[in-house]
């Protein structure tokens, strides 16, 4: 039986995490459907319909789904769940918000943050901030998973568009109402979750201006800016830049940790990066234990120097 992927999008563009989930879905079944619930999300539907190995895109367009409110979305998914063996969503704040609600409505247990699919009913996921990997098997008739996008490759595009089915189902539970969102301006820098290079700052930085300094480096590298919890708690950067156990999980090809000591909670969010660079003035900082390249130095000298050298390149 088929896999249903709950797409993450903003009514205009399909978030890349969905493309990673298509690859995971292929390991579960050959029949893959994607649900796009939103408000007039035609452009997202078109994007999803061109993904390789996707058989059908389901479109549910209504004001009730515009802001992805969990109560409305979960009831919609519950209603179409009968056709699917697997229901999967990304382990992002979107998927984590909606999918457990779906699971409880269906009276099915959920497996969170799957990083490997061993077989059709056996999965690996990290626990204890990634300090242990648990392998679990489920005997449930229906299997509900959140999937860590960075653990799976992005899928390819198909030569032809798949079929599109309109769902005429409206669930407006009136339990919650969207008021606003305060997004952080990333000034043309790539999105943190998708960036090939991430420059992240921690407790070693003291002011917002220090992050401006990091940003100059990020611009040169076409990198995203990230942060440890300490920097977010200190109010230097917004919460959506936090990397770690309770923030975002990233796995770029290059991760530059600047003034980050390397608490286990932070490592949980970045240790799958391909190359890790640590710049810290404390030679005992735990981050050096897993960095590919370590530099014990004052970041206030290193960052401008590195930025300048990249300029000269």
């Amino acid at each position, binding site marked *: 039986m088929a896999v249903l992927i709950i797409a993450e999008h903003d009514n205009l563009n399909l978030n890349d995490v969905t493309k990673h989930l298509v690859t995971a879905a292929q390991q579960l079944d050959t029949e893959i459907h994607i649900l796009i619930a939103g408000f007039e999300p035609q452009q997202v539907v078109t994007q999803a319909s061109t993904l390789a190995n996707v058989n059908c895109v389901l479109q549910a367009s209504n004001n009730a789904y515009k802001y992805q409110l969990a109560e409305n979305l*979960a009831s919609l998914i519950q209603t179409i769940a009968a056709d699917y063996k697997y229901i999967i969503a990304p382990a992002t704040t979107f998927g984590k918000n909606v999918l457990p609600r779906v699971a409880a409505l269906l009276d099915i247990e959920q497996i969170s943050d799957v990083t490997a699919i061993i077989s059709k009913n056996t999965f690996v996921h990290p626990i204890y901030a990634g300090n*242990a990997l648990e392998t679990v098997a489920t005997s449930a008739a229906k299997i509900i998973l959140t999937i860590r996008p960075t653990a799976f490759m992005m899928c390819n595009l198909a030569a032809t568009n798949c079929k599109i089915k309109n769902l005429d189902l409206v669930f407006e539970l009136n*339990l919650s109402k*969207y008021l606003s969102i305060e997004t952080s301006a990333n000034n043309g820098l790539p999105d943190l979750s998708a960036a090939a290079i991430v420059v992240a700052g921690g407790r070693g930085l003291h002011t917002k201006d220090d992050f401006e300094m990091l940003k100059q480096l990020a611009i040169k590298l076409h990198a995203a800016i990230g942060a440890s919890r300490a920097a977010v708690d200190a109010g230097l950067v917004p919460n959506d830049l936090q990397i770690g156990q309770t923030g975002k999980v990233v796995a770029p090809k290059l991760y530059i940790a600047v003034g980050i000591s390397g608490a286990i909670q932070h490592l949980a969010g970045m240790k799958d990066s391909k190359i890790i660079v640590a710049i810290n003035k404390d030679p005992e900082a735990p981050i050096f234990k897993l960095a590919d390249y370590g530099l014990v130095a004052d970041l206030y000298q290193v960052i401008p120097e590195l930025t300048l050298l990249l300029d000269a390149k």
Partner: protein
Amino acid sequence: MKCLVTVKQVVDPYINIRINSDHTAVETANIKMAMNPFDEIAMEEAMRQKEAGIISSITAVSIGPISVQETLRQALARGADEAIHVVTSQTLTPLNIAKVLAVLVKQQQTQLVLLGKQAIDDDCNQTGQMLAALLGWAQGTFCSSVKIDVANQGITVARETDYGLETLQLRLPTVITTDLRLNEPRYISLPNVMQAKRKPISSINLDSIISELRTEIKTLKVEAPPQRKAGIMVQSVNELLHKLQHEAQVI
């Protein structure tokens, strides 16, 4: 308005965990335990709402063996008026926890449930959402601000999402899960600890709440993740840049 706060006992977050010898679980015997940090934030939020005159009483709940009473004592010291210990030796999955909580919520006629957004042991991040579903209530997950308007039966929350801070208006009754920046839990004073010893903890057996517990998930093994090896130390910015360009070839 009555409020229920869940408090889970977990391995102290500052301890390096060890996997047991038969690779079936993380060792918890003779290990320092603590209240899940997100639940401390939930407790603190309940206290602040009570101090603001919005919440009338706080009931703390924990599910597990006798040892979880230590965590309930901490909740009482943090300001809970009473505590419920659901006694079981089994480890429950989030769905089963949510089912137990749903029964208690109905018994207690609670209007508001505060939970940590995730427990730092299993990192599931499910229970609050599941409880909201079972009760048919609104859910405010990953909250960094909670403003309750009793007169209008509404709550305005700010949620920490991947896209920034999202503000929602929720209808009461509501399930709220707490994120890191909702508040900073206060220091517990000795008089509060002493007072907590006199507050009631009522114990209820799990099977008197739910007769049949079903789980379809089985742990096959628990392993340490592959360890990254430390690389090399470079001596200068020039050397670092050279390595990144020519050795790692990532820039």
